[in-house]
């Protein structure tokens, strides 16, 4: 494939789609390649109530609107591709897909987002969908009057634990520290809920059962003691990790696995920008991803015009 795009955006979450909208509207020949679902983490959000100018909207609806906007400005989009090789240091950058196709561009915007962390312990693969879940909105009603474990200590874990008490008979929160990272109001709400109990300073070590999940092995991190805890389901909310593994050694990445960028979203490689949940920053919201994507696209436009 000889065509050279002006900008190639890797990722189709809020940052990637925003970059696509701005770049294609700026008359750049724009390609978005996505290894995952269009919309990224937005699609994981049932309802977005704090996106300025929109009172409430489903995550997938906002994603669909952004996708339509990008396409309406002429942006080419390919989702669910598998990228095997990245060449970012040359003047013309390229990626090679699993099916042999090669795409080239003058600039690249990295927006691979993040993914939910899993525990990576024995039994995980066997019981996903058979007791293990990462989405209370999706799967809570399979656990009516059942016993549940929620893993995590952040806002998502505590808020979702409270939500799950509307379905489950009891919810046990397992958290690795002796305190929670969640906001005080979320902690307070969970602590006063009679269906919720806590196992602190502990981590899951294995999922166990027959055809379905029946129990988990839990280690007390302070004493080293192991216990088996009977449960019908486990909901895991232990945060997200940036999808940057594929770029190790290619682009500057910090100790947390995040791309290091400047205020113009420039990475250490000329013509390569990064945006969204994959970059080093404190706050990760749809709005901040949109902002990052916008800046990255405008920087790419400037780079093409001026070479800087």
């Amino acid at each position: 494939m000889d065509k050279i795009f002006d900008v190639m955006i890797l990722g189709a979450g809020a940052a990637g789609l925003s970059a696509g909208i701005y770049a294609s509207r700026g008359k750049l020949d724009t390609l978005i390649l996505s290894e995952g679902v269009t919309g990224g983490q937005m699609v994981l959000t049932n309802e977005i109530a704090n996106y300025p100018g929109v009172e409430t909207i489903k995550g997938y609806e906002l994603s669909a609107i952004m996708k339509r906007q990008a396409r309406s400005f002429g942006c080419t989009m390919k989702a669910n591709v598998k990228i095997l090789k990245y060449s970012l240091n040359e003047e013309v950058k390229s990626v090679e897909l699993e099916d042999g196709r090669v795409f080239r561009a003058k600039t690249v915007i990295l927006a691979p987002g993040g993914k939910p962390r899993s525990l990576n312990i024995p039994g995980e693969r066997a019981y996903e969908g058979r007791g293990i879940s990462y989405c209370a909105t999706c799967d809570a009603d399979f656990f009516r009057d059942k016993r549940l474990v929620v893993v995590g200590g952040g806002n998502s874990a505590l808020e979702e634990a409270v939500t799950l008490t509307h379905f489950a008979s009891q919810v046990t929160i397992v958290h690795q520290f002796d305190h929670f990272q969640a906001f005080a109001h979320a902690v307070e709400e969970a602590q006063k809920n009679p269906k919720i109990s806590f196992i602190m300073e502990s981590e899951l070590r294995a999922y166990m059962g027959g055809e379905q999940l029946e129990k988990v092995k839990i280690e007390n991190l302070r004493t080293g003691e192991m216990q088996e805890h009977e449960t019908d389901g486990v909901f895991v909310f232990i945060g997200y990790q940036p999808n940057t593994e594929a770029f190790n050694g290619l682009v500057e990445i910090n100790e947390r696995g995040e791309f290091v960028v400047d205020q113009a979203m420039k990475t250490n490689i000329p013509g390569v920008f990064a945006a969204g949940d994959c970059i080093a920053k404190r706050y990760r919201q749809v709005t901040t991803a949109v902002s990052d994507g916008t800046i990255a696209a405008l920087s790419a436009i400037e780079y093409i015009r001026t070479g800087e």
Partner: protein
Amino acid sequence: MNYLRTNIQEIETADELQKIINEHENVMVCCGRMGPMCIPVYEIMEELEEEYENVKFYSMGFDNPESVVIRNAPECRGFMGLPFTMYYKNGKVAKATTSIQNMEQVKQNLDTHLA
């Protein structure tokens, strides 16, 4: 009545599902909601429609009472994660999966069970 908003054609009744699997050799049906575990599977199906011309791709609303034929299928016993995805070969269930599946997993099921 439609329960889903996807680009995949939605089956509305159990009779319609039966007719489709009787009339077509290879059918994939994703039974779910508009949630984060289901939407990626619909999108993968949309991407694969051109590549797998020998397979008919459909969705069905999990909250549609008519989808009880999928929800209560013996192949879905023990499933506790959306979506329930069915692969039908010559009118029979060749494979059923629970929860989110990636492109590689869907293609493997299509290649293995609906070849």
